[in-house]
């Protein structure tokens, strides 16, 4: 038989003709005339056109037509049960929306590649490199076609009139050419601009910066802007989609590395310093080389260079010097390094919630299809293919899930905003502002669609297959008369309910652990006072203040703040606490052997002023604090904390000892203070040394300053006054953040807060879904057993015993779920122990609390239908059909 449409049609025509001829012959032999016989045969056959159509239908399964028909049918059916539709759509929207929101973040942070040429050929070199080392690696390596160096840093910028904060990225000459980024206006930085030092003060603006701060001025090329008070000429504008090689910080402009002394806040040149690693390097592999070859090659080159002994950073352990390569296509990201694992954790959580929602809907579908059982049985017996029916039921599920997914996108947009609010406003060593470009784009929509379809198949397939099992005998029985409870097909529902409870327990345990962890972090004793402290950060040096001017300015400002009503004390520090930023150096005791490990001989440093000890709560335990006599002309002094004293002077008195610190000799230790945290709440207690800002000239460092005001009550009302005061002294001075230290602490705990809040929310949601699922299963089971209940009661059973009979069923399911859930939780919680603070992954209280809550909710979910069952009138029950 031919396979083409025309071939088949022709074939059937022949068959039909031969059939009709035979039939006509028969009649002719019975005595009819030829014409009569043919006519009778044709009439006996019936509508031959319709038959031909039917046959054609069998061969050309009209997928699209049938699919559309199924869709319309499903829509009609769903409209008839609005409560089911509402519950299903809502659970799906929440589940798919949550998954989409988190995926958007993951995409923006982990998956998205830079908009450059052939990003897969790029490798990120781990670590920070000095400028001389970068130059030598460029010249001598054998494995990279080109290496580019860059580093971003915050600067003060005057574009038209006002002074603003901006992010400048220092780049090597081959940066733009290697990445393949063409200018939108003018030209980009090239190799000529990169040598010699300070000779080419040129800048390329980012598209966004050009639009927002320069009003998209078409003749911007050639204009002069001032970066940290130094004039730079604008040579071009970058294309709209390019914002540098760092993921979460958008570069506003690019300048040559050789301009570093002007662009860095300290004003000190690091261009020839082999001991200062500050550049990040990206390399494009030579064609034909893979990552392993590039990795091996660059390490060989590094060790060769190090052996020549000219680089301070590579004096020790040359044979173990390493450079690890990472895929460069996704750019540099501090946020990714800190945040990647919690994001995956959250993805797992919302995937579980979606799974629970799917199980709920599957259960609901099973219940619904039981009602349609007779319809399905009739259709099956009439010869409808089982596959066709399953297809129709699946179409219904898919229509539901895709509709839920579309609604979920709306949820995702809203959820994404909430997630982004958890991110810190600044991150990294130099407090770069966080500006993550996370939005719903085509990739995210594709993800949402795929998840919707997968979800639809997941919750729709089992019920569809089950309800179309061609059990004709069962359909003949009247369902309500089954005296024995629990027909085989209902096990699916119970199984799903038990599964839901187990997963819900898992999520509740997780939520319990994370919330306790968060609470511990908040309540941890960090050795600093955080309530009622206002902090404001600024950097006079970047606006041109000399050291003496800055000192004066600070003194004036502190005095003015002290006179504010409600202010108990004012203090200042160079590095703001709890922001992740650190400053430090080597602590060398003359006469003692030098520890080999750099970490063992280093200490953190903060230069402080004002009434530091009273305002921030760190106490002087022994010795003395800073006095006015410790000024610029006096001998250098320092105060160290207890951990430092124990580490560097075990068993001896530290006070009075003279050490070499930050390149300054004979620094006298004048006091020992209490331990406190420095950069984050959850770090292990660091060793800290404090010097006084009055001796700023001796201990060189950046010009940033943070002022702390301790107030009697809520410090927030003082914020506008503080701003005003600073502006009255210097109207052009840009301020960084003005916030309370309590808020800063909160911000520093952003990961813990995000995980805690979201796991709590989704734990609660999963509990609700599991309860609904359980309730549904119980209600259905009771409706099946109504006759049985009626019989029992009419035989004299007490209402209470009926209640217990039904409730026992429910409790068994809850117990089953818990029995599965607990070992699962124990096993899986070990995976997240790195996210926990102050609590172990096996904390019994957390498990008990979660189990208790789940048991209570489960019992309640079962109690309601059980109670209703016990109130059934036996006569009504017996008559139930």
């Amino acid at each position: 038989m031919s396979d083409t449409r025309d071939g088949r049609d022709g074939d059937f025509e022949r068959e039909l003709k031969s059939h009709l001829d035979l039939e006509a012959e028969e009649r002719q032999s019975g005595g009819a005339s030829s014409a009569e016989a043919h006519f009778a045969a044709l009439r006996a056959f019936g509508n031959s056109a319709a038959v031909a159509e039917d046959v054609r239908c069998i061969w050309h399964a009209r997928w699209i037509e049938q699919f559309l028909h199924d869709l319309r049918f499903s829509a009609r059916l769903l409209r008839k049960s609005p409560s089911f539709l509402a519950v299903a759509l809502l659970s799906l929207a929440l589940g798919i929306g949550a998954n989409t929101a988190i995926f958007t973040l993951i995409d923006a942070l982990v998956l998205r590649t830079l908009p450059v040429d052939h990003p897969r050929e790029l490798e990120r070199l781990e670590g920070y490199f000095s400028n001389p080392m970068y130059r030598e690696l460029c010249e001598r390596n054998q494995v990279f076609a080109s290496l580019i160096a860059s580093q971003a840093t915050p600067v003060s910028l005057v574009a038209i009139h006002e002074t603003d904060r901006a992010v400048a990225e220092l780049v090597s000459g081959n940066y733009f050419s290697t990445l393949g980024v063409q200018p939108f206006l003018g030209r980009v930085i090239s190799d000529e601009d990169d040598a010699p030092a300070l000779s080419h003060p040129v800048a390329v603006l980012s598209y966004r910066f050009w639009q927002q701060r320069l009003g998209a001025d078409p003749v911007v090329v050639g204009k002069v802007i001032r970066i940290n008070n130094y004039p730079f000429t604008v040579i071009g504008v970058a294309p709209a989609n390019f914002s540098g090689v760092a993921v979460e910080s958008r570069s506003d402009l690019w300048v040559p590395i050789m301009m570093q002394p002007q662009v860095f806040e300290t004003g000190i040149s690091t261009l020839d310093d082999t001991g200062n690693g500050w550049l990040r390097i990206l390399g494009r592999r030579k064609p034909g080389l893979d990552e392993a070859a590039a990795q091996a090659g660059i390490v060989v080159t590094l060790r060769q260079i190090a052996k020549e002994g000219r680089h301070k950073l590579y004096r020790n352990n040359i044979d173990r010097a390493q450079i690890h390569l990472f895929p460069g296509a996704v750019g540099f990201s501090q946020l990714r390094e800190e945040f990647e694992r919690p994001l995956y954790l959250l993805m797992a959580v919302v995937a579980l919630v979606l799974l629970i929602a799917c199980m709920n809907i599957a259960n609901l579908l099973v219940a619904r299809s039981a009602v349609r059982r007779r319809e399905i049985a009739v259709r099956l017996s009439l010869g409808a293919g089982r596959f066709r029916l399953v297809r129709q039921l699946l179409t219904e599920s898919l229509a539901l899930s895709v509709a839920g997914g579309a609604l979920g996108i709306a949820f995702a947009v809203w959820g994404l905003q909430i997630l982004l609010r958890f991110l810190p406003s600044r991150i990294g060593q130099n407090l770069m502002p966080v500006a993550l470009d996370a939005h719903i784009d085509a990739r995210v929509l594709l993800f949402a669609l795929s998840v919707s379809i997968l979800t639809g198949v997941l919750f729709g397939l089992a019920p569809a297959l089950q309800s179309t099992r061609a059990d004709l005998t069962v359909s003949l029985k009247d369902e309500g008369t089954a005296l024995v409870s629990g027909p085989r097909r209902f096990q699916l529902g119970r199984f799903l309910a038990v599964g839901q409870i187990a997963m819900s327990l898992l999520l509740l345990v997780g939520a319990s652990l994370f919330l306790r962890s968060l609470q511990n972090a908040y309540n941890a004793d960090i050795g600093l006072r955080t309530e009622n402290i206002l902090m404001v950060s600024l950097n006079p040096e970047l606006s041109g203040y000399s050291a003496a001017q800055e000192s004066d300015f600070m003194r004036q400002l502190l005095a003015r703040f002290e006179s504010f009503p409600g202010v108990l004390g004012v203090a200042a520090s160079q590095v703001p606490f709890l922001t992740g930023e650190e400053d430090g150096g080597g602590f060398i005791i003359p006469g003692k052997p030098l520890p080999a490990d750099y970490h063992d001989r280093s200490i953190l440093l903060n230069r402080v002023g004002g009434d530091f000890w009273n305002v921030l709560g760190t106490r002087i335990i022994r010795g003395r604090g800073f006095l006015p006599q410790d000024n610029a002309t006096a001998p250098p002094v320092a105060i160290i904390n207890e951990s430092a004293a124990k580490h560097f002077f075990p068993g001896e008195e530290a006070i009075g000892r003279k050490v070499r610190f930050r390149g300054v000799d004979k620094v006298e230790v004048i006091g020992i203070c209490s331990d406190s945290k420095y950069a984050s709440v959850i770090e292990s207690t660091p060793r800290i040394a404090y010097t006084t800002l009055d001796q700023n000239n001796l201990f060189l460092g950046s010009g940033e300053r943070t002022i702390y005001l301790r107030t009697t009550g809520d410090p927030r009302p003082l914020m506008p006054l503080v701003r005003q005061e600073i502006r009255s002294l210097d109207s052009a001075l840009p301020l960084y953040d003005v916030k309370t230290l309590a808020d800063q602490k909160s911000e520093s705990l952003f990961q813990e807060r995000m995980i805690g809040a979201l796991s709590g929310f989704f734990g609660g949601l999963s509990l609700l879904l599991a309860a609904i699922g359980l309730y549904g299963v119980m209600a259905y089971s009771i409706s099946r057993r109504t006759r049985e209940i009626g019989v029992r009661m009419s035989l004299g059973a007490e209402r209470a015993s009926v209640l217990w009979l039904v409730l026992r069923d429910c409790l068994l399911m809850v117990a089953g779920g818990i029995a599965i859930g607990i070992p699962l939780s124990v096993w899986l919680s070990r995976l997240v122990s790195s996210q926990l603070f102050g609590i172990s992954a096996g904390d019994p209280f957390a498990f008990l609390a979660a189990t208790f809550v789940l048991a209570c909710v489960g019992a309640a979910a079962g109690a309601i239908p059980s109670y209703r069952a016990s109130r059934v009138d036996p006569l009504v029950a017996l008559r139930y059909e």
Partner: protein
Amino acid sequence: MTTITRKTDADRAELLQGTLDMLILRTLLTGAAHGHAITKHIQRTSDEVLQVEHGSLYPALHRLVKRGWISAKWEVSKERNREFKYYRLTPTGRKQLARERSKWAQMAAAIHRVMEIA
């Protein structure tokens, strides 16, 4: 040739489609046949009780071919020197027939028991 008498409509049993498939398969067990012959065979063997609507025969035949339970081929009939499309049972079809047969027997027995219990 005798005139073919037909019973009244009331006596004509309606044939469910699934059962028709089974009857076709059974008919082909004894040998290949074309569509017309199958109809006649069923009618004759059931003593004119079962009348196959021609409108349902051919869709049923094509459906069975699609499922792979029977195969079709145009052949020259020995008696008439004319081409007909002959249908044959396939091995899978044979198995399917056995399955349907036992299901049918079960159902018939069950109904019989209900009807005959006093």
